[in-house]
């Protein structure tokens, strides 16, 4: 238990001043600007927005700068900031089918309407350090090609057309919101997806990996991954209609998984779904795998693997909660520890007393313990 302590104000003030000094670092090196973070560390900004659960590039860049690049600290800062703002309401449902595509690939169909476009990707790079980046060398503008305006029809849509994949259940009642109501179990898929969308990328990646290695296998194919910009609309009470708010960048992953069928239903593929703010394919893919693993019970599959355990996954996915509980251990626990120390001393005294009565010299015991 943590008991409040007093004192140390000056030390704390000085420690924070020292933090500010170290954050700025060598004054001969130019300070980094929020624009530089936003543009040149863009994927870091994406991750902080996603797990901070707040879409605002400038704030995420500020959080990264303030946190000295510590991503979880930056995510924490963003989560804390959002609590200071009123909520106007919820947006209309975003239509990812109408996304202005910057990347779209499928591992299941090589020829699909709209085609496959790689976009800005690390895929197929050799992962060799590029020493030309140590200086500010000129980068040639990206190549262009005539763009046909064909819609990028989704792979799930293609399969659904031929009845080969499950449909999605229609809306039923209120949309769960774990920022308003604490999570309880069993949780609906809406709450699970909200939890996973803001969940720690590393945690979800490890869980997703575990399903591939056999702990809750669900035979996935990356049906489609798309990244691009989508329009957001919000029904404004005062205006009386849905107003356009602008566009945000999203990455969506449609995982196509092992099929299921029953006496009354023809066999068909099942689906896992992942989505993240900005460009974050790893997170979206991991989320889709975990979403599918969490549906094991619903689909009548064998359960028991960590990724299929809803309470385990959803209770431990949030890195702000996790870091809070792990890191609180470093706060003064003096009273707690004094109590334990007192108990331990008492137990030791009793032990030595028993030993003395049976004739073993105390020094010999201490010697044993030391060895």
């Amino acid at each position, binding site marked *: 238990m943590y008991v409040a302590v007093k004192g140390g104000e000056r030390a704390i003030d000085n420690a924070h001043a020292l933090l500010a000094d170290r954050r700025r670092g060598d004054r001969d090196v130019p300070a980094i600007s929020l624009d530089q973070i936003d543009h040149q560390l863009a994927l870091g900004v994406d991750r902080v927005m996603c797990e901070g659960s707040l879409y605002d590039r400038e704030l995420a860049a500020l959080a990264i700068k303030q946190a000295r690049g510590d991503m979880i600290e930056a995510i924490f800062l963003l989560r804390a900031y959002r609590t200071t703002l009123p909520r106007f309401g919820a947006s209309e449902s975003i239509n990812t089918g109408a996304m202005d595509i910057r990347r779209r690939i499928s591992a299941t169909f090589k020829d699909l309407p709209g085609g496959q476009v790689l976009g800005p990707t690390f895929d197929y790079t050799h992962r060799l350090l590029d020493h030309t980046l140590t200086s500010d060398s000129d980068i040639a503008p990206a190549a262009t090609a005539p763009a046909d305006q064909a819609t990028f029809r989704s792979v799930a849509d293609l399969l659904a057309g031929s009845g080969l994949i499950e449909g999605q259940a229609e809306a039923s009642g209120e949309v769960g919101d774990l920022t308003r109501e604490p999570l309880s179990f069993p949780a609906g898929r809406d709450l699970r997806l909200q939890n996973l969308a803001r969940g720690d990328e590393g945690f979800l990646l490890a869980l997703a990996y575990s399903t591939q290695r056999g702990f809750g296998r669900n035979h996935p194919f990356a049906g489609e991954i798309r990244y691009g910009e989508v329009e957001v609309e919000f029904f404004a009470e005062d205006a009386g209609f849905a107003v356009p708010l602008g566009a945000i960048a999203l990455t969506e992953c*449609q995982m196509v998984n092992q099929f299921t069928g029953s006496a009354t239903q023809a066999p068909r593929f099942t689906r896992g779904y992942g989505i993240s703010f900005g460009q974050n394919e790893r997170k979206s893919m991991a989320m889709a795998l975990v979403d599918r693993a969490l549906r094991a019970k619903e689909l009548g599959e064998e359960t028991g693997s960590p990724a299929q355990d809803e309470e385990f996954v959803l209770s431990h996915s949030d890195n702000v909660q996790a870091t809070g509980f792990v890191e609180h251990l470093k706060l003064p626990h003096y009273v707690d520890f004094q109590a334990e120390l007192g108990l331990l001393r008492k137990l030791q005294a009793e032990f030595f007393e028993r030993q003395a009565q049976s004739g073993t010299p105390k020094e010999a015991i201490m010697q044993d313990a030391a060895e």
Partner: protein
Amino acid sequence: MSTINSQDRGNDAARESLAQRRAAMAVLAKAKAADIARGLADIGSDVAFTDARPAEIGLVMLRGRIGGDGAPFNIGEATVTRAAVQLETGETGFGYVLGRDREKARLAALCDALWQSEAKRKSVEDHIIAPLRQQQQERRALAQAQTAATRVDFFTLVRGEDER
């Protein structure tokens, strides 16, 4: 019968008008405050207005759909700034924009109010919306062309062991 038809036509016109207004709002939402201000300066609007709702920063929960096409769920929030202005001629304009730029929300609201005024609509469309729309379309076309240059044609190869 004829009354129903005229009513339908009226509804169609209203729908059409709202679609145009929303399209203008969409352009404003993606524009920079300074560019909107420049457009407003160009049309030299001298209509007096009051702040019906001073610019306010808040959050909107962004909703996705399960599987992309199913029931809604909450992805996460976004910062949004809203404002409303009223012209002395009575029109109330609304500005709702992603981000935390109060000035932009207020300018967008003013443009929306002016857009609703029959006398001002054309100059708002021609001098503010049209140039911004063109700028945005050019940016979008460039991004689409750069994306198109990364189009791949994967083809599967016949493996040796399949040939007999």
